[in-house]
């Protein structure tokens, strides 16, 4: 059975929460769509990336949201480099 990993949020102001694969998948889908990827391809890419991150979390009881973003961006870069660039830098736009 896979243990639950807890995610420490950026800045530490919001409470720690359990890792939610659906939330990660939704953010990857949104990023792929925002670079005009067809919906089906966006879903497939998000599933693959979420699988990679979930496997990576298997032996980690606690990670930061930045760790998850970095790992997800690494995985996304293999499937969709353009989306990965946007995903990686989304909080560095303003």
């Amino acid at each position, binding site marked *: 059975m896979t243990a639950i990993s807890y995610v420490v949020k950026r800045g530490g102001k919001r409470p720690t929460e359990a890792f939610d694969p659906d939330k990660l998948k939704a953010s990857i*889908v*949104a*990023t792929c*769509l*925002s*670079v*005009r990827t067809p*919906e089906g391809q966006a879903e497939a890419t998000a599933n693959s990336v979420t699988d990679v991150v979930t496997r990576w979390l298997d032996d980690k009881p606690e990670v930061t949201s930045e760790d998850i973003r970095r790992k997800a961006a690494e995985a996304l870069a293999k499937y969709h480099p*353009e*989306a990965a*660039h*946007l995903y990686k*830098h*989304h*909080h*560095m*736009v*303003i």
Partner: protein
Amino acid sequence: MDAISPLASIALAGLIHASFQLSISTLTLLGSRAIGAKVTRVRLVKLVGGFTLGAVIMTLLLLSTTALWLQSIFGSIVPNLAWAMACGLLMGLSVAVWIFYYRREPGTSLWLPRGLARFLMDRTKKTRITAEAFGLGMTSVVAEILFIAGPVIVAALLILGLPPYWQLAGIAVYGLTSLLPFVVVALLIANGYSISKLQRWRSNNKGFLQFIAGCGLIVLAFCVYVNQVSDGIALTGGGF
């Protein structure tokens, strides 16, 4: 024609205003979020249009208010001391732009305090209706007031010196030039241009944009000094 030289300087001030990137950053983020949230093309055009309109109106309001305020202080003849102070402000801003306009990290993070940047990002994420986008466009102009103050004040001073029938033209010239690149980006987003390519270009060329903005401020300071301060000193025999 007497108005050509001030109008050209106003256009230059508008272009310098255009080189500041907060509104474009916010617009890029808004477009990216809206497309990612699967909004329809009509909704996307309305959001981008609302944002653009908000930024245009706030820019024009800011310039008109500044001109009115300066007119109440100086009347229609601006003293040399005020021109000299405006030149000093432009020079100071140019150094500030070169030193800390962009943060030294990947992406296009700006000088803004992180609390304000987070607020703008959160508001951008939550923006779903045109009125919110309009308000966000206005806010993005106000948030950058520290840097746009220089070109706006100089343009307002130049407008004061124009004949009344040219003053509206001066405001229009500033509005058009300051928002030209912004409108181009809005059109690119509305017509389906890849936002990540746009963002990558901005990120790769931010050093150049920063350098150009700083140089533009120095050139404007030089133009203002030559046309207003040194001319004024020659005419008045050196008095301020």
